């Protein structure tokens, strides 16, 4: 294994690497922006390019086709692709907890999931819906007859206007949007997927297995720099939010900082050693796979959870 300095010296130039985000540039991905800003990738001999995501950008397809080398996606979504035959593997688990909530205004009277009967329940779909489906299953609610599942857009206007009774919201993004729009926390009911025991793993890093086999050293270096970035960002989310805001000003600085603070809680939950950022908890991955097999009946095959699909070897090398 070469050290970073040796690699840089030997080649004299940086290795190009592209990272495909799952969504727009925002504090959800602050670790990578902090690492880039502070030069951690350069120190590892990497010239990083961070590609923003969007509603029609599918990280799994871009990484598989070689548009990007490394991608950020949700584990349940990655598993769906793996089950179809895409040779992709996870190399690190960035979020240790689910950030998904089901939020409703108090006046809709939804205080537990059982109250969802007859209501309009929103999600973004396209692979983001499995935790909600698991929740419904837990409360024996039929997704077709007991309530109406609707597609929600990327604002929270539908909740404010009342055209959706309960909407999906990430702790770090949409929930903040609702609060920022002037709705008081006391006026909202929140169902937390972690508390309900139906959490599935979300943001992770993954690669094309074939590409990975030829770039093992590069992956380790990327992880080392990214973990350093995430450690800094989680320790000082305010500064991280500012760094992200300077990259992309599409939302306010306050929102980026709010998001950074919430994301830090998912990357380094209470009692979690920051030295372990990116650790793949195979039990949590297995739970995600089990729920996925239960709630996506059209899956081509049962998700495989082993070291061909989820490998910790790069992470172990990077955190040595």
């Amino acid at each position, binding site marked *: 294994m070469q050290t970073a300095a040796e690699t840089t010296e030997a080649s004299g130039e940086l290795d190009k690497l592209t990272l495909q985000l799952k969504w727009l540039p925002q504090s959800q991905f602050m670790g990578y922006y902090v690492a880039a800003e502070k030069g951690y990738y350069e120190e590892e001999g990497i010239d990083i390019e961070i590609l923003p995501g969007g509603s029609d950008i*599918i990280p*799994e*397809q871009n990484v598989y086709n070689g548009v990007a080398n490394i991608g950020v996606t949700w584990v349940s*979504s990655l598993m*769906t*692709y793996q089950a*179809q*035959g*895409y040779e992709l593997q996870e190399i690190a688990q960035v979020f240790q907890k689910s950030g998904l909530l089901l939020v409703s205004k108090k006046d809709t009277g939804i205080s537990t999931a059982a109250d969802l009967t007859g209501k309009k329940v*929103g999600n973004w*779909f*396209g*692979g983001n819906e499995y935790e909600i489906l698991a929740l419904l299953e837990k409360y024996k609610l039929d997704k077709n007859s007991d309530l109406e*599942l*609707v*597609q*929600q*857009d990327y604002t929270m206007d*539908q909740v404010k206007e009342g*055209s*959706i009774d309960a909407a999906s919201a990430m702790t770090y993004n949409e929930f903040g949007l609702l609060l920022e729009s002037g709705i008081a926390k006391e006026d909202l009911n929140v169902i937390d997927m972690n508390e309900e025991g139906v959490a599935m793993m979300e943001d992770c890093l993954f690669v094309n297995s074939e590409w990975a086999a030829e770039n093992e050293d590069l992956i380790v270096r990327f992880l080392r720099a990214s973990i350093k970035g995430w450690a800094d960002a989680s320790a000082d989310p305010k500064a991280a939010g500012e760094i992200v805001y300077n990259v992309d000003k599409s939302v306010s600085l306050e929102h980026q900082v709010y998001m950074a603070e919430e994301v830090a809680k998912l990357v380094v939950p209470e009692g979690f050693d920051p030295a372990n950022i990116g650790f793949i908890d195979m039990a949590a991955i297995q739970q995600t796979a089990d729920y996925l097999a239960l709630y*996506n009946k*059209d*899956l*081509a095959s049962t998700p495989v959870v082993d070291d061909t699909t989820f490998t910790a070897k790069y992470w172990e090398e990077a955190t040595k």
Partner: protein
Amino acid sequence: MKDKIKNIILPVSFGILIIALWEGGVIHKVLDFKPFQLPIPSQIIKTLGKNFEKATLDTVTTVNGAMVGLVIGCLIGFLVAVIATQFPKWGYTGLTVIATFNAIPIVALSPIMNRWFESGFGQKVGVVSVVCMGAMAINAYRGLNDLKPFARDLMESYAATGKEVFFKLRLPNCLPSIFTAIKINVPAALMAAMISEYFAASTSGLGFGVKDNLRKGMMAMGWSYIVMASLVGIILYLLIILVERKAIKWHASQR
């Protein structure tokens, strides 16, 4: 007669050849696709068979919205053409306005109209209506006004009233143009309905089925919705041609 048979056999055998090459993996080899990127026809059909009940429901949802929107759009378009014909001075402006609707891209229109209507059905009908208005207005206007030379002079020399000119001359003369407009509008209506579903809140319909499954990498399922959409499009088009044959037997295009 011989030409007619040739006209059917050639395209059909070409279609069969393409499907055979696709099924046999030749297309995959040439373009370097994996089966999970482009599923083979037998797999698509198998997937469709397993999911047939839901796919049928989704198809009905989309077709209902498309057809109601088509009828409303065509009626409005026709009405505008009639007004422009009977009151040319100010009516023609309306025609111009409606015709410019044709230039609005559906992808821009859908997300906006989706906020006006609460139900997925209303959203679809709204978008489809707007899309269908222009073609009908322009075609019907042409049919109402491109009269045979001297036909109108003849009517007038018989002292025919404006009402008689309209019902006995303009309207029959307009029928072939109406069918042309409907033939343009049927595929446009289906397409508009599906695109509207991309942006709609509702989680049913062909458009949602295609989008959601392709996003999840479930290509065979996505393709099975594409197959349903194509089948519906072809069936509707054939229906229109059949009705057209009965309705305007006298027209040169039907001989």
